[in-house]
């Protein structure tokens, strides 16, 4: 049932703070938030008010453009805060859970108005699946290759029958491909998988669901209980005790941060200094979102990453040998060590790299070529597509295959780029223009 693909191009980052195979139950976290900003193209209309009592699965906001699309409350409880940003933009609906509250009573099957619908994403554009579209396939990645991601086999242990039920429910909408990708990151990205099996053409769409969400859909269909549960990884070079956590979507991360950023009681994993602050990222270090220590996990994210802020100068950084600096280009002395990775078990001291949030250089025009291709397993010319996006040539973008990609597919290109261009932002903005055009 599980298909496999083999990918050769890519890069697995030797980043520290890999979480231990040990799950801590964090389902007792009390505060949760639904963030409409996690959903591309979602124009929220609030359905609840502060102080309202809600049950798990009850819609909190709906999309103004398509009222069938709603974002449900992950738990039963009380709406304790509604956070707005600039121009009254809705940022968070915060729910404080109350034990003993019932799940919403609904027909336990997968329909657009069931609370699980938001788990299905659509490509191109990365929106919530449009129920009117007919996808040419529904893709589930069974191996997450992003750095520090949870091992999905481990995360789904014991949920096999739910997974099966979820796949069955999804089959009502199209062929389901569960794919276990082999090879370096981005092998496990949905974009890579779709490109390898059945690339998207203009006018077509595919849907994708996270493997753990398939199990959540399965649970909903089997029992009628809406409980969007995930095993997430909490790690990264600045984490004190990288571990897995079992929790519900949109959980508050305060308690996890307290443990992971504590100075004492846990030996430092990487020997990193605690003088500068730490960035907390909901999602992967390559394309996640920065959140505050009392913030909430993103709805689709299954990672919490802790990385040291790199806001320090580096004296003659461009000239120093750089034994601790990681570079894909082998322009630092550390590049000499990497070929010996196979000998690592024999080495007395394992090579460890200091990853932080420093840009490691200033922004420049594109000078070098041929690097992106080495980490970009698509039949697409990445540099040419990026340039087409920068100049806003929509026709050329379409010709070069913009519909086959999402910003996250360019994450490694952005990482290795010596010109320090914000490629994912460029791709997202280009896709937004196309999406709005398609809607109009």
């Amino acid at each position: 049932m599980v298909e496999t693909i083999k990918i050769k191009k890519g890069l697995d980052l030797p980043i520290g703070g890999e979480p231990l195979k040990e799950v801590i139950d964090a389902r007792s976290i009390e505060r949760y938030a639904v963030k409409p900003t996690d959903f591309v193209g979602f124009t929220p209309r609030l359905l609840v008010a502060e102080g309202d009592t809600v049950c798990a699965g009850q819609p909190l906001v709906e999309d103004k453009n398509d009222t069938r699309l709603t974002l449900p409350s992950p738990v039963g409880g009380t709406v304790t805060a509604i956070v707005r940003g600039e121009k009254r933009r809705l940022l968070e609906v915060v729910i404080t859970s109350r034990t003993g509250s019932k799940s919403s009573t609904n027909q336990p099957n997968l329909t657009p108005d069931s609370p699980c619908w938001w788990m299905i994403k659509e490509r191109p554009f990365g929106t919530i699946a449009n129920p009117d579209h007919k996808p040419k396939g529904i893709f589930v990645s069974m191996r997450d290759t992003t750095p520090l991601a949870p091992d999905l086999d481990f995360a789904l242990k014991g949920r096999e029958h739910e997974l099966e039920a979820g796949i069955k429910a999804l089959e009502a909408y199209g062929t389901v491909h569960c794919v276990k990708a082999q090879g370096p990151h981005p092998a496990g990205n949905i974009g890579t998988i779709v490109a390898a099996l059945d690339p998207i053409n203009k006018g077509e769409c595919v849907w994708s669901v996270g493997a753990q969400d398939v199990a959540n859909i399965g649970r909903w269909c089997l029992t009628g209980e809406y409980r969007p549960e995930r095993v997430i990884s909490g790690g990264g070079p600045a984490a004190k005790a990288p571990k897995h956590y079992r929790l519900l979507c949109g959980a508050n991360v305060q308690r996890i941060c307290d443990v992971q950023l504590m100075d004492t009681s846990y030996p430092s994993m990487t020997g990193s200094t605690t003088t500068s602050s730490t960035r907390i990222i909901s999602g992967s270090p390559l394309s996640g979102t920065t959140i505050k220590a009392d913030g909430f996990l993103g709805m689709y994210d299954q990672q919490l990453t802790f990385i040291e802020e790199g806001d320090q100068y580096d004296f003659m950084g461009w000239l120093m040998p750089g034994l601790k600096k990681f570079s894909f280009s082998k322009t630092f002395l550390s590049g000499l060590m990497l070929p010996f990775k196979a000998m690592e078990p024999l080495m007395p001291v394992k090579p460890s790299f200091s990853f932080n949030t420093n840009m490691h250089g200033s922004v420049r025009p594109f000078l070098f070529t041929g690097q992106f291709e080495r980490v970009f397993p698509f039949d697409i010319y990445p540099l040419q597509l990026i340039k087409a996006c920068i100049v806003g040539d929509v026709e050329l973008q379409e010709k070069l295959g913009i519909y086959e990609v999402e910003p996250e597919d360019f994450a490694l290109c952005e990482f290795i780029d010596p010109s320090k261009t914000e490629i994912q932002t460029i791709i997202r903005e280009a896709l937004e223009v196309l999406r709005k055009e398609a809607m109009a």
Partner: protein
Amino acid sequence: MNMKWLEQWFEKIEPKGKWAWLGSTYEAFHTFAFTPKTVTRSGSHIRDAVDMKRSIIIVVIALLPALLFGMWNIGYQTNLAAGTDWGFWHCFWFGLLRMLPMIVVSYVVGLFIEFAFAQYRGHEVNEGFLATGLLIPMIVPVTTPLWQLALAVAFAVIIGKEVFGGSGMNFLNPALVARAFLFFAYPTHMSGDKVWIANDLWGSDAIAGATPMGELAAGMHPSASALDMLIGTIPGSTCETSVIAIALGALLLLFTGIASWRIMLSVFLGGGLMGLLFNAIGYNEYMQLPFYYHFLMGGFAFGAVFMATDPVTAAQTNTGKWIYGLLIGAFAVLLRVCNPAYPEGMMLSILFMNCMAPLIDHCVVAQNIKRRAKRAAAIGKEAHNG
């Protein structure tokens, strides 16, 4: 090493208010001393340690073996021609003193223009010229007058690069633009057999010393052996003669991934194939020359390693790089053998292919576009029939 004091000094002197227009110059020196403390804002939170400065400095380091050998060879050639008996260090110091003024002139003139343009545009100063500025004095005859060199550098930076928008926007290799400028503006200083050997330290009285290609163009067999050419103890442009020294640089460029192995390999392949073709024809002495002589003579190896691989002016697609390199090698040998007006074909061949590179890329990318359109059309037809 605690450089806190320097950090603070830089922060103290940051130009503000009425001096704010000096931002580009300040930024250039500041980032030279320190990689900035800028952190990522969006997208990937972590970044590769490599940046433009690091990439360019690798090119400069890769040039050093050829540069050092070239310095020694300047002295050695003078020594041979004058019939004196200089030791190793004497030769080296002589060459160093001849090269140094050229390097200084190239950097001062070029960087001044770069800074001026960056200031004018409010851009940051691009580090690309650190490589270009060293390349230019390495590919001219040692007797080139400094004022000509200065003119050539200015021409290359302004007309070759800045009018198109600066580094990354130019379509011709700036170092070769400088050489082409000298070649066409001052032909008597750039070819013949009187320009390759420095007389005394400051003098410019000509000493005859023909390059192997000069001899071949005159219909003679080269007097230097293949081994001499491999090591580089022959007359020629300042730092292009030693294939071994160039190979050392090539190894660094290839290991670090800064230069494209596809281009480097295909230039030699193209040159070799063309040489073999001429061997098969065998019409005259030049055509009968064993094909590998072309790799050893003149600027072929230097051009293949340091000039053709300039990523900005080369083809950008991987397939395009093969075509681009093959044609550079083939045209260079073709020009050498068939056009006695230009003894060295490498420079013109690379410049010509610089012009052709966008066309090559266009055709390669068009194939990808065609493939995608075909796929979409097939799906459309299927949907129509079904």
